[in-house]
């Protein structure tokens, strides 16, 4: 063989597969077995017990119902926001605001949403006080709906906005020239190309709602959902791991179905290569309607969060409303809370570092090697599996496998858990970026004496730096806000901010909850702007140099 043997890439592939074998497949297999394991070997007893037991089927039904309703509501709202951005003549600044405000909830943990809802719409809530009366009962269906909608709005908006930017707007010109009515034009050139994405948005939101633990933990009330049942089986007053494992397996079923649906729907996604920029048709009424609707939606979302900027800074909500920094100071003088913050920062930073390396390595094997298709498919399947597994299921699987090992109660296990839980999206970002790069770089560089590793360091990595930073930022923010998986594996010494919030809820220390939430928000905002700055700073250098380019370039002579 003259061809390069690609030993380095085989090594990377081996490492990646090994990590996922130990930290994904084995724990899942263990969970699967556990759900069948009885006193007398394998049996279906636990399933029978769970399915016929009081509450589970009801919770399952509740989960299906609330997740479906939330997904529909979110998708409609996100459509309105995205439509306002892409199809209306609104001021650029306002569009920028919509773009940023719509994704803002991503920077906070879901468990905070619930408390924000309580403090906004509860009996003594900020918004209740403004209106003079409680608008609706927050515990149960309504509170969950509100929380889920806020939680899934960013994802749905990003999906729809992305597709809308690629939908060829010239079709609407053609449609109008052909004499279609405005409604027919709307259906034919906006709604139809978006059908796949709308369905994907519904499915994705459904999945997120179905598997989230943070929101029902705070506002679920008597309205039991699968996530709360699962938590109570594992960490409740009478834990039963086998039954918990069953519930986890049951949670997996809708997850697998939704992800399978998402893959199926991908076929219906229209892919255009370039974004066509055309002038949007004048329509004052349309602009006004969508401008105002967007403002209302975002006002509702942001008003829920207003409370976290208020409550921690007053004496005692809602009885003594006087500005004070007492709560903030007390949080920062509490040594245990400082440890928690330090844990969170370390975990988020290392998750980002390890996650970027892992996804980069995995993407190199699929995008820039000549390994056989079957080998590459292994990585693709890993990505698919991580996309399917809810965080709670990973957390429980880890709890079963790593309890009693030296890995129990370490930051290491939290970091690995995050890296694996959030693997799919950054891997796909990385792969897409590496695939777009020139396929001949490695050969060319090798002909100039490079080893493979040298080419990766000198050429591929510098050109992938923008995406690597994005991936780093994605992992960092998600590691800061994640609740569902870490709640099962964070120990007393390795408590992170989100799990501490859960604990503080138990002691009804809501001031601390909000101070910590604000801290997460501040860290995430700082991190995002830092990565954004680094990424655009690199671009600016390019732009400046382009600007210096002489207008007329001399031909060779």
């Amino acid at each position, binding site marked *: 063989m003259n*061809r390069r043997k690609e030993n380095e890439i085989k090594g990377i592939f081996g490492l990646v597969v090994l990590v996922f074998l130990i930290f994904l497949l084995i724990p899942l297999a263990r969970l699967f077995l556990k759900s069948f394991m009885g006193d007398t070997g394998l049996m279906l007893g636990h399933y029978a017990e769970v399915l016929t037991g009081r509450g589970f089927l009801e919770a399952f039904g509740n989960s299906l119902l609330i997740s479906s309703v939330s997904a529909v509501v979110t998708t409609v709202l996100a459509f309105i926001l995205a439509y306002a951005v892409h199809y209306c003549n609104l001021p650029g600044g306002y569009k920028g605001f919509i773009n940023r405000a719509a994704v803002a909830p991503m920077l906070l943990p879901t468990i905070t949403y619930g408390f924000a809802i309580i403090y906004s719409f509860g009996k003594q809530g900020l918004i209740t006080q403004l209106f003079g009366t409680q608008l609706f009962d927050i515990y149960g269906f309504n509170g969950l709906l509100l929380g889920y909608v806020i939680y899934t709005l960013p994802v749905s908006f990003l999906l729809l906005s992305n597709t809308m930017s690629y939908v060829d707007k010239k079709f609407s010109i053609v449609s109008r020239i052909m004499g279609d009515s405005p409604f027919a034009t709307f259906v034919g050139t906006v709604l139809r190309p978006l059908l796949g994405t709308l369905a994907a948005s519904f499915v994705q939101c459904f999945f997120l709602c179905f598997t989230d633990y943070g929101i029902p933990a705070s506002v679920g009330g008597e309205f039991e959902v699968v996530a709360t049942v699962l938590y109570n089986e594992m960490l409740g007053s009478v834990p039963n791991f086998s039954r918990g494992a069953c519930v986890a397996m049951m949670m997996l079923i809708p997850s697998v179905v939704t992800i399978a649906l998402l893959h199926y729907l991908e076929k219906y996604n229209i892919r255009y290569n370039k974004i066509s920029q055309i002038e949007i048709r004048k329509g004052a009424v349309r602009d006004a309607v969508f401008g105002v609707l967007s403002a209302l939606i975002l006002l509702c979302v942001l008003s829920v969060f207003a409370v976290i900027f208020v409550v921690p800074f007053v004496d005692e909500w809602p009885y003594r409303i006087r500005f004070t920094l007492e709560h903030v100071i007390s949080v920062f003088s509490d040594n245990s809370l400082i440890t928690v913050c330090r844990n969170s920062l370390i975990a988020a930073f290392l998750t980002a570092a390890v996650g970027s390396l892992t996804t980069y390595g995995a993407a190199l094997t699929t995008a820039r090697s000549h390994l056989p298709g079957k080998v590459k498919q292994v990585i693709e399947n890993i990505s698919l599996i991580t996309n399917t597994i809810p965080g709670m299921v990973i957390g429980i699987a880890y709890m079963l496998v790593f309890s009693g090992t030296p890995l129990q109660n370490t930051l290491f296990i939290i970091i690995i858990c995050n890296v694996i839980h959030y693997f799919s999206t950054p891997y796909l970002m990385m792969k897409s970026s590496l695939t777009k790069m020139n396929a001949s*770089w490695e050969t*060319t560089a090798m*002909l100039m*004496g490079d080893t493979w590793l040298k080419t990766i360091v*000198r050429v591929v990595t510098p*050109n992938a730096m923008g995406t690597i930073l994005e991936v780093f930022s994605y992992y960092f923010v998600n590691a800061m806000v994640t609740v569902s998986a870490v709640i099962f594996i964070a120990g007393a010494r390795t408590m992170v901010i989100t799990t501490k919030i859960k604990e503080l809820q138990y002691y009804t220390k809501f001031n601390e909850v909000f101070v910590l939430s604000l801290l997460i928000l501040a860290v995430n905002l700082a991190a995002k702007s830092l990565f954004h700055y680094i990424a655009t700073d690199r671009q600016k250098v390019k732009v400046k*140099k382009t600007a210096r380019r002489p207008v007329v370039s001399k031909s060779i002579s």
Partner: protein
Amino acid sequence: MLEIKNLKKSYDGVTILHDINLAIDDGEIVSILGPSGCGKTTLLNLVLGLADADEGEILFQGENVLNVPMEQRGFNIVFQDYALFPNLNVYKNITYGLRNNPSISTRQEVEDLIDLLGLREHLDKKIEQLSGGQKQRVALARTMVMKPKILLLDEPLSALDGVIKESIKAKIKQIARDYHLTTIIVTHDPEEALTLSDKVLIIQNGTISQYGKPDDIIQKPENDFVKEFILNQLLIKKNNIFTLFRQGNEPKIAAQVG
């Protein structure tokens, strides 16, 4: 001298190339000409060492190099899309190979190449700021710094238009002459092949249709493929041009290349 004997290559049981026999003298420019999918790029990859042959021999200066790994063969290639490194400026692209092998070209030799290819004023530029012709010249310079024993060019002109194409053609000829460098060019354009090279290798359906000097191919086409697809195309072009430049309709300028 590069000799190819009984070369055969197949992928997944489908024969791409078979019965390839030819010899190329030192310093010659040879074009491999054929329609897309005929196997010409595969032949280039076999010479380069990027792909392995099933059977046959590739002899360079009398030695079989078929089992010599690509990077040790000492041949070099400029890919169709140039494969320049966008994170490095023009100068760093040109001198990329020197970092691994500082003694391969002297400073003076590098400077000469920069001047020969007219790149002096572009050295600090980013790759994305260059035009297609400039990129091609940078890629050529970067490869020439490595002092290849054979220079391989994959469709070097197909992304370029008009006068730029002619000027790059002139540069390729000049390099082959000045450096006495054996140059093998893959192209699908008969005009390019016949006006650029000392010899043309016409490939069809994975084997040699005709191999000879441009004059021989024009005067003595050996088969219908050469006649119908190669010469016919050129005749149509020629007639079109003649119609444009018919008596009394000649432009009042003289042709300039480069």
